């Protein structure tokens, strides 16, 4: 958890959260008619999930398909009703409309009205978001600004049916950003977006974070999660099985990779540099001083340092390790 958010109030607080699909009717059958009760067809999507996300942070939720990520995201929005446990979002219940007015959501798949234009759609979402306030209509300036932010300024008058998947995703993001939400829940926000578009969206989300918004990202693109989030949780079988900063999860502390332009492999090995298959060397140095001394020793033996980076594992290997695959 980053220092700036360590003592911040919580945007999301889940304690012992459970969700079983098919539990409602079957549990009543079990109460009334125990002999007929069966638990075989019940599916436990969340099994006692505990999670705290401070306001202003960027949290990424990762896990394999069926881990319960989408169920948790839907529970945050009140779309799915938890079977047990406690869930608070922005200090209130997810079902509270006042809480939902402070949330922007980009769903994994969004059914947009094909016959509408982007302008008409954003105006509609703005009206529904602000229906209780005096200024519920989106002004021309607000609309133009919102469309420009997501790179759709030139396509405002086109029908949504003619949009590509990436454009639809951008429009969904524009809708989520309406009203400057305090919490952005993003379910695969860059799905279908080209690499340059991804970078634009990433910048936009980081801009939102600087504004003070909390980001909650659910993505299969682990590199996106790694780049955007300062805290990551790994979800498996409905529980958070590991949580921490990218640095903590990927274990970069004290491990380094160095690449030299020249220098004898034997000499470097003698200095404790472990040769790797890609031609680089692994080394451990607990302090910056130790690292500097070891590199100086290598240089003294004629090695020219061309690259030095922390030897972090990527999230994919961390995920595989945590899930035992």
């Amino acid at each position, binding site marked *: 958890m980053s220092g700036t958010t360590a003592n911040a109030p919580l945007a999301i607080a889940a304690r012992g959260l459970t969700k079983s*699909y098919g539990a*409602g009717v079957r549990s009543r059958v079990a109460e009334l008619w125990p002999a007929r009760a069966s638990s075989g067809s019940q599916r436990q999507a969340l099994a006692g999930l505990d999670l705290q996300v401070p306001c202003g942070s960027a949290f990424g939720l990762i896990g394999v398909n069926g881990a319960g990520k989408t169920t948790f995201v*839907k529970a945050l*929005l*009140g*779309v*799915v*009703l938890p079977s047990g446990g406690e869930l608070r979002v922005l200090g209130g219940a997810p079902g509270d*409309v*006042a809480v*939902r*007015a402070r*949330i922007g*959501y980009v*769903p994994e*798949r*969004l*059914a947009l*009205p094909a*016959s*509408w234009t982007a302008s*008409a759609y954003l105006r*509609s*979402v703005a*009206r*529904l*978001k602000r*229906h*209780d306030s005096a200024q519920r209509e989106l002004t021309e300036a607000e609309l133009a600004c919102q469309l420009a932010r997501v790179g759709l300024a030139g396509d405002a008058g086109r029908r949504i049916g003619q949009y590509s998947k990436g454009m639809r995703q951008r429009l*969904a993001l524009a*809708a989520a950003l309406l009203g400057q939400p305090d919490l952005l*829940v993003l379910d695969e926000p860059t799905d279908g977006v080209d690499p340059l578009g991804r970078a634009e969206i990433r910048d936009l989300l980081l801009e939102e974070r600087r504004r003070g918004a909390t980001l909650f990202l659910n993505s299969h693109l682990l590199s996106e999660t790694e780049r955007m989030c300062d805290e990551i949780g790994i979800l498996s079988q409905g529980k958070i099985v590991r949580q921490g900063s990218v640095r903590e999860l990927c274990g970069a502390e004290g491990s380094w990779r160095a690449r030299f332009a020249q220098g004898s492999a034997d000499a470097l090995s003698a200095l404790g540099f472990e040769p790797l298959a890609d031609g680089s060397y692994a080394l451990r140095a607990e302090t910056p001083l130790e690292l500097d001394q070891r590199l100086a020793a290598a240089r003294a033996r004629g090695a020219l340092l061309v690259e030095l980076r922390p030897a972090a594992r990527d999230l994919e290997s961390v995920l595989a390790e945590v899930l035992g695959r």
Partner: protein
Amino acid sequence: MRAAAWIAFDILREAAARRWFLAFAIVLSLIHLGILIGLRLEVVDGALAATRWFGTELGHDIRTADGVMHHVFEAATYVAFYGGLVFGVLACCDFGPDLLAPGRIEHLLSLPIRRLELLLGTFLVVMALCLIGTTYGAGGFFLILCAKSGVWTLRPLCAVYLASSAFFAVYALMLTSSVFVRSAALSAAAGGVVFVAGICAGQREQLAALFESGLQRQLFLALSSPLPRVSELAEAAAAIAVGQPAPPALGRLVLGTVLFGLAGLAVGAWRLEGKDF
């Protein structure tokens, strides 16, 4: 509840782009145009001397225009009443399932809208479409007939609006069935069942005689008692259209139909509140 009105407004805009409704509007307009151009009624001193359809004489008998128009209005009221209900069931069966479609419902529920408002918004828009369709279709038809015959009356149009009260009950059950199972076919089937059951319920006294007296007959009467009296409403509408006094039980019939619809909606709202998407 302001959100319900905005939802209704948005769905209405979407409905305007539907081929079904565009086709319906075009067909109605063509029928109006056909009658306007093709039908000639020669009325002399309040008597209908001749009726021509694109130049072909349809009848020679000289009868009072008033009397002939009564028959026409009666027949047209039945056609508009039952035809409108059947069209409504078929044309509106996917509004509920569309609203609850994956990718749409999650987004709507993530907005600061109550679930009840979603249901009400959908219901309101279908009722608005029903009233617009009735006003345009039946209103245009009766206006042309009145203008051509010189028999001016608003009664047939008022009578056809009674179909809207029947559709209130039918669509409430259709929407509720969509909340339980998101299927346009099932929604249409639910509408069809209420429609047919409502016709039977309107004739329940006569139909009860077909059952043996005793438990079977009492059971039939008990089961049919909460159903909307669709056929009774149609008969009342036809009576009003031809200038007869409204049946004394009309208020009770309409109230019962509306209550049936509201009860259906209440079940739908209860289910929607506890449903996961």
